[in-house]
């Protein structure tokens, strides 16, 4: 990485130059630097609305970057150790879908773990690829789905020599990493591309003590959520490529679904955040890691909570652990994660990232201060004092092995009927069911419904998880294939 070059921010600088030129706008957006919408200016501020401008020659165009956006993307590629980088304005969802649509055509097979984000399976619905699931290992104590055992990935490759790609979470929402280096070596031996979902991995690129990043491991493509640990605005993201992928084809794929009116608020936030990460990322993530470690040790000393860290690494399905994550297992206190999540928000004014059946995840980032960590720990201690009770062991597992009966695309477009959920066992599901967050499907289109899955869905709903996916918002009925 060329540090001197990283000090510049081409998109941001072009916007500054443009502002000083005081160009009279007879183009979109129609609010004309906010003058046509004073209430919006009051809410967002003059500075913010004046940056909301159209693509034009001095500011480049995201659909076909040739000047400042192109330079900014090159700087991003350099900062992340990639051959190419694309600024994405449709969330990491758009980066994930671009990877899959690049790698797979209709009928192609792709090897992936089942605990993927919904955007992955959505991409399969779009392109008609066939998922080959590698069952992630499940930790029986904390109940969460882990990474993929390398040997199981290799078996899937041998069993499916016609597969075109492997997709890896690096890391999972909970911070768990598979052995991505070994998987890359195997995949390339079998002529398969490696796609990494790094929605939770931006920071891996900026600290050597964190798990290895996808680009460093030699993966072919990576979708990186700059807006999570990278500090850019929500909905902005990066797609990274190694030199093994045809950039012209990737650009065509991106432009299939990308807006032609990309927001300069998002683009400039990507540019500035990349600069910040390149110049100060190492120092920031050192601090984030030490705050998370401090929080872990304090939470573990309360008793009753289990804040896991590097101690769960097992060399296989947990090849490495991202220590900036603060995941806490809560069931030993008789409380589900979602109950603790709700108590923290309703009683203590603390909003954490998510709670599932057994765990909570607090997101620690470059914006946190140690006194906020003290509040979180203090609140968890108070929750233990006031709300803990005898643990019940019902429904510990967050992961149920799916039975794929049809491809996601076929199931999605088949004729379906709405059936009361209790009567759906044995039928093939036509839609997604998931708790959001974390947004990992419990059921995906094309999967067979079982009693175990129905019990899990109803239990999660009763415990207050926000359920998404089905047409029926109550989830009292599900769409199944006729």
């Amino acid at each position, binding site marked *: 990485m060329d540090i001197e070059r990283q000090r510049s921010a081409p998109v941001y600088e072009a916007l500054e130059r443009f502002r000083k030129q005081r160009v009279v706008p007879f183009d979109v957006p129609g609010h004309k630097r906010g003058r046509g919408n004073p209430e919006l200016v009051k809410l967002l501020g003059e500075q913010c609305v004046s940056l909301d401008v159209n693509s034009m020659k001095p500011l480049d165009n995201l659909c076909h970057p040739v000047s400042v956006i192109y330079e900014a993307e090159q700087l991003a590629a350099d900062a992340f150790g990639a051959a190419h980088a694309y600024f994405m304005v449709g969330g990491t969802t758009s980066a994930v879908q671009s990877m899959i649509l690049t790698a797979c055509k209709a009928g192609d097979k792709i090897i992936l773990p089942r605990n993927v984000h919904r955007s992955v399976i959505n991409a399969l619905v779009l392109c008609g690829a066939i998922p080959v699931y590698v069952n992630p290992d499940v930790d029986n104590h904390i109940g969460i789905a882990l990474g993929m055992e390398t040997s199981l990935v290799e078996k899937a490759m041998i069993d499916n020599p016609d597969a075109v790609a492997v997709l890896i979470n690096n890391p999972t929402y909970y911070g768990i990493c598979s052995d991505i280096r070994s998987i890359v070596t195997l995949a390339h031996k079998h002529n398969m591309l490696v796609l990494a979902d790094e929605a939770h991995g931006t920071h891996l690129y900026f600290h050597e003590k964190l798990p290895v990043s996808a680009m460093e491991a030699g993966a072919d493509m990576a979708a990186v959520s700059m807006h999570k640990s990278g500090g850019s605005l929500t909905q902005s993201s990066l797609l990274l490529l190694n030199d093994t992928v045809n950039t012209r084809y990737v650009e065509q794929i991106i432009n299939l679904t990308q807006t032609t009116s990309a927001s300069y608020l998002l683009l400039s936030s990507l540019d500035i955040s990349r600069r910040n990460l390149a110049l100060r990322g190492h120092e920031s993530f050192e601090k984030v890691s030490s705050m998370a470690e401090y929080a872990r040790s304090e939470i573990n000393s309360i008793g009753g909570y289990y804040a896991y860290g590097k101690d769960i690494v097992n060399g296989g399905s947990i090849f490495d652990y991202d220590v900036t994550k603060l995941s806490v297992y809560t069931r030993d206190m008789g409380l589900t994660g979602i109950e603790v999540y709700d108590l923290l928000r309703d009683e*203590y*004014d603390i909003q954490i990232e998510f709670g599932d059946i057994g765990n909570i995840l607090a997101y620690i980032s470059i914006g946190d201060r140690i*006194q906020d960590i003290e*509040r979180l*720990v*203090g609140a968890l*201690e108070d929750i233990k004092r006031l709300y803990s009770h005898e643990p019940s062991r019902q429904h510990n597992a967050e992961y149920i092995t799916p039975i794929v009966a049809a491809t996601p695309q076929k199931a999605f477009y088949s004729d379906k009927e709405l059936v009361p959920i209790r009567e759906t066992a044995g039928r093939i599901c036509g839609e997604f069911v998931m708790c959001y967050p974390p947004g990992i499907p419990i059921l995906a289109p094309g999967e067979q419904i079982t009693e175990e899955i129905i019990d899990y869905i109803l239990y999660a709903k009763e415990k207050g998880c926000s359920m998404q996916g089905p047409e029926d918002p109550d989830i009292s009925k599900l769409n199944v294939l006729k």
Partner: protein
Amino acid sequence: MDFWFSEMHTGNVKMSIRVDKQLFSETSDFQRIDVFDSPEFGRFLTSDGSVIFSEQDEFTYDEMIVHVPMAVHPNVRNVLVIGGGDGGVARELSHYEEIEHIDVVEPDELFVKVCREFFPDNSKGLDDPRVSVINRDGLRFLRGKQDEYDLIINDSTDPFGHTAGLFTKEFYGSCYKALRSDGIMVYQHGSPFFDEDEEACRAMHRKASKSFPISRVYQAHIPTCPSGYWLFGFASKKYHPLHDLDAKRWNARGLKTWYYTTNLHTGAFMLPKYVEDLLEEEERAEKKL
């Protein structure tokens, strides 16, 4: 020279104090601290641009936050002061001989240092041999403490700045746990007058009355506070601030005060109608839950 310090009490109300000179300005990990000399309020200290105390009116809250609980609790031995790095609260506490130990937990070392330099009259309270000054986050200090204190005084004033953690349910819960079975906690309750302060004031009462069986509010007039009107919270496991007031015992001590009297003690709990109403609203909301 026309040299003024101004503090916005709301977006539309500004309090200004003519300044003679600025004596100090530095930013710690927690706050920016400034010290000024002024003709009207004498020397005063500000944190992030808000007046924390002035020589002219600090006696009011130091007396009100110490003597009120001390005149009620019959046997205070162990006291915890959260914040209070200036030493004013410790100074008032040091007049009571039965107190055996006082922990003053102030996270900001710079704050203590500045007060020692510019407000020696306050900080001499920290020199009492019974006082330990601990530079640690208040919530962190309280963690794991159980059944140790007879009195906890939360001397922090700002529910939004770096002391925000001391106005939370987890803080009140931690204090409850750290207090003995007849313990009392008093705390700065803010000012209820301006709209934007009202919600913070309500929230404090809501949280305290949820954590403690007895939770009352009392008042004082402090000119440098927003609207000049300030409230304190009295949260207690056993003693009632009025029914258990032992005026005779307290007056027999012969302590010299400028603000507090046992008559004022009773009067301070008699609140204006609008304050009574908003507190009762929070109590009712609490019962419904």
